[in-house]
């Protein structure tokens, strides 16, 4: 942390959706209420914000869920900590041609995101929808190589491209992250299947503010995490996600305990 010219503290937050208008609302509020200058650093690539936080080039980041963070901590040998929850986003399966999962013809093409975490979660959704079965019942670390039986052809694309592939007719159905679905104006009626954001199995998919371990009790940072749940911001978040975000407030300690649990699972999964 360092002092700005006007004595206000500047906090750099790494995000992946800086273009969403609610971040402007958020930054304005932070200045007004906390006298904190929020600088948003936008990343198109998920692999970068965590190392950048570790290297002290960011104070906080907010783009991932616990599952992703656990995976990062384990594989990169790091110790970043969640300090506040934001929301859970369901991961729906959309189709524009078919109205039910069961209507999908055999060997129809289904697109899922290709990044490690979304891919695993997408596969779990497809398994839940009865379209594939995964080795050992699937984990949060499954990839397309773990598909044992399949009714459909799974193709992996960049998370930002699955909606487009659906719209162009290149695939019959697609797992689309909610923010992209909103931007692509996919109708809610096109959702043919989605995981339940309120279920316990969805708990690791709660999105979080992340800080370095030594900053996990930093007053300002905790306040910044809390600020996300200001009604004005929450309203913006819902607008940006077609109202399907399930906003969550979970105490930091609980999040950190959950992280530990998931990390243990991750270590186990690596063996």
């Amino acid at each position: 942390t360092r002092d700005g010219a006007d004595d206000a503290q500047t906090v750099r937050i790494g995000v992946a959706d800086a273009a969403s208008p609610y971040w402007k609302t958020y930054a304005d509020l932070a200045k007004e209420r906390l006298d904190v200058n929020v600088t948003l650093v936008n990343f198109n690539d998920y692999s970068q914000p965590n190392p950048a936080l570790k290297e002290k080039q960011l104070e906080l980041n907010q783009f991932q869920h616990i599952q992703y963070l656990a995976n990062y901590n384990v594989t990169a040998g790091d110790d970043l900590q969640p300090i506040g929850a934001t929301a859970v986003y369901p991961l729906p399966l959309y189709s524009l041609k078919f109205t039910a999962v069961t209507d999908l013809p055999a060997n129809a093409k289904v697109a899922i995101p290709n990044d490690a975490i979304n891919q695993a979660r997408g596969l779990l959704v497809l398994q839940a929808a009865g379209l594939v079965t995964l080795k050992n019942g699937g984990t949060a670390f499954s990839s397309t190589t773990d598909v044992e039986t399949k009714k459909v052809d799974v193709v992996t694309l960049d998370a930002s491209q699955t909606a487009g592939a659906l719209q162009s007719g290149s695939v019959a159905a697609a797992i689309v992250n909610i923010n992209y679905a909103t931007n692509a104006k996919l109708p809610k009626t096109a959702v043919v299947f989605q995981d339940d954001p309120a279920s316990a199995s969805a708990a690791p998919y709660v999105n979080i503010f992340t800080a370095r371990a030594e900053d996990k009790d930093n007053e300002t940072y905790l306040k910044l995490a809390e600020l996300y749940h200001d009604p004005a911001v929450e309203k913006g978040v819902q607008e940006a996600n077609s109202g399907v975000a399930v906003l969550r407030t979970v105490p930091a300690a609980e999040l950190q305990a959950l992280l530990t649990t998931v990390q243990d699972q991750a270590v186990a999964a690596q063996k």
Partner: protein
Amino acid sequence: MDEFLTNLPVFREAIWQTFYIVSISVVAGGLLGLGLGLVLYATRPGSLMSNRAVFITVNILVNIVRPIPFVIFLTAIQPLMLVTIGTTIGTNAVTFALTLAAAFAVSRIIEQNLLAVEPGVIEAARAAGARPISILLTVIVPEALGPVILGYTFIFVGVVDMSAQAGLFGGGGLGDFAVTYGSQRYNWPVVYITVAVIIVIVQAGQFLGNALARKALRR
């Protein structure tokens, strides 16, 4: 490492996809780019078939296509892809887009290298009564062959690099493999091995290019 071994089939598939994407893009894009490059060269003011209108049009077209971010370019040509190859994702779609991208890059390289050809030999060909198109193909290109071969090698390496973006559109390939199974998972051995394979492919290509260029230059 373990994980790498379990992913071996995917890795093999990625190698095959890279070969597929790169070879088609380089060959098809190379030919298309040669054509465009010849147009750029031949229609420029004072050249063999100088034609202001064509030159400016092609010049601007190439400049429009080249700098557009690949994601946007690929999105922009999706209607074209649907008409021609019937899909906007997958290996073929990426190959299609890369072919176009390579063609536009090749055109500039060709233009550059042909400009270095000595005017005297072009005069000799004109004096023999040859047609401009024949002068281009049987005199000017052969005269610039050494640098042109190195130019193609340059584009080949660039296409291998660009093919890493194939993953965005489900095109697969080694670059995608290195990112998805490697760096995104902080799995460095996967990155090392994959990048090593990429480098071997590139070295082989460059070696061939250098050898052919040396033969063409005879020095």
